[in-house]
């Protein structure tokens, strides 16, 4: 088999797999509506404010409710040391030049 034929077969296979994955994404998105609605209803009923992503510290569990002095919360020289802190950005006021 010619190299070019082999290359186009491989490329077509990759495009086909990607196409199937996009179809999968579309199907999953449709199927997930019930689950999303259930989560949204729970949030509304219980008055929840945050996703349960990082349970390691109170300010990472409820990121939107955390104190503004979060990184130094335990004592004045206590620097942020939880791994999930590396995902978050500093508050806008800290990064803006005054």
């Amino acid at each position: 088999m010619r190299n070019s034929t082999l290359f186009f077969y491989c490329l077509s296979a990759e495009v086909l797999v990607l196409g199937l994955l996009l179809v999968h994404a579309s199907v999953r998105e449709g199927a997930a509506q019930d689950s999303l609605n259930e989560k949204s209803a729970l949030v509304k009923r219980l008055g929840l404010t945050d996703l349960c992503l990082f349970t390691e510290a109170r300010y990472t569990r409820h990121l939107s409710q955390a104190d503004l002095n979060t990184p130094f919360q335990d004592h004045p020289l206590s620097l942020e040391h939880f791994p999930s802190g590396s995902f978050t950005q500093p508050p806008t006021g800290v990064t803006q030049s005054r």
Partner: protein
Amino acid sequence: MNAWIEKQRYIIDFTISSLLRRKVKNLGLLALYTLIVFILASTMFFTYSIKKEASLILKGSPEIVVQKILAGRHDLFPVGYIDTIKQIRGVVGVESRLWGYYYDSLVGANYTLLTPPKTAAGESHAKTASVEGEAGDADSAASSKPLLELNGAKLEPGTLIIGNGIARLRKLTRDDYMPFRAFDGTIMNLRIAGTLSSQSELVSSDLMLITEDDFRKLFGIDTQHVTDVIVTVKNPSEVATVAAKIKKRLIDSRPIIRDEILRTYDSIFNWRGGMMIVVFSAAVLAFVIFAWDKASGLSAGERREIGILKAVGWETSDVILMKFWEGAIVSLSAFFGGVILAYVHVFFTGSLVFEPALKGWSSLYPNFDLTPFINAEQLTTLFFLTVVPYTVATIVPIWRAATIDPDSAMRHTGE
């Protein structure tokens, strides 16, 4: 047309043979390139999907949450403040919330204990001060259904409804007892009345729903204090104004509006944020080195090959075409391979590579499958970030080399 296609095929045949002559180098190049696309695509798929999911789930979060701040820290909210908030024009409801954390030393996990609001559970006695009924909210009927009768579980004094993550971690089932050490050292044994559904783990994995009386008994909080309050505003466009008025009347308060909550989740997984910038800059740096290596010149072997091709009659345009196909073969293979692997990684394996960083030091981590929110914009962005720069970087030095005299190209083999 057929002749043109056939010419391209012959050039591709030759290009692939040429690539295979330097098998180790080119396969290494392909693997590294695929890895870069994989990291970028995984980051992009993960961040976009979680941001989209967060925005859909949290659209039902409270319009305004008001905390009391003491010495810059979140403090218990005096019930007396509720009347002050009620008097602000535009406020239709003020509801107190009781919630807190409990550290379980047995498994080293933090739980979130929450007393369901009165609208969620008829039997709960959380202090509520409604100025007037919520009007015009289509979801209000659904949200006032007694949630806590889910699967027959009913929250009563002495019972708990727990999140699925806690049930899994502590291997608890319905009617099991869970001991808690109260603020005064006494032991409280609470019965598990039910478990929240596994579908909702992304928001409820570490949740424990508890009655108000039990909550106050456990943490020693008197009836004159709550954790914070939720304010409902009649006109959504007045939320920011009401929040500003609350701040003005209650100087030591901190109102947090829903937009800020949504913005928090938008910025956490932003491209510019923390870990993502590290991942992104490492990938970009590797790619720049890649492109620089290509752009800075050809190896002696490659120059000799071009010289020979020109000597046997290849046009400059043919050489450039060959190198175009070389770039396209490598970058298209890497692009599709990287994107497919990234999709499988994020949506089939639950982001295996990101998992250790996401879990951090948590003992309790939610099991959740991200909904794949993929659109053409993401794929186009990835394509232009990876394939186009590489292909261009390959062609530019070739154009320089292809225009030189074949004799000198073949002679300068020692470079």
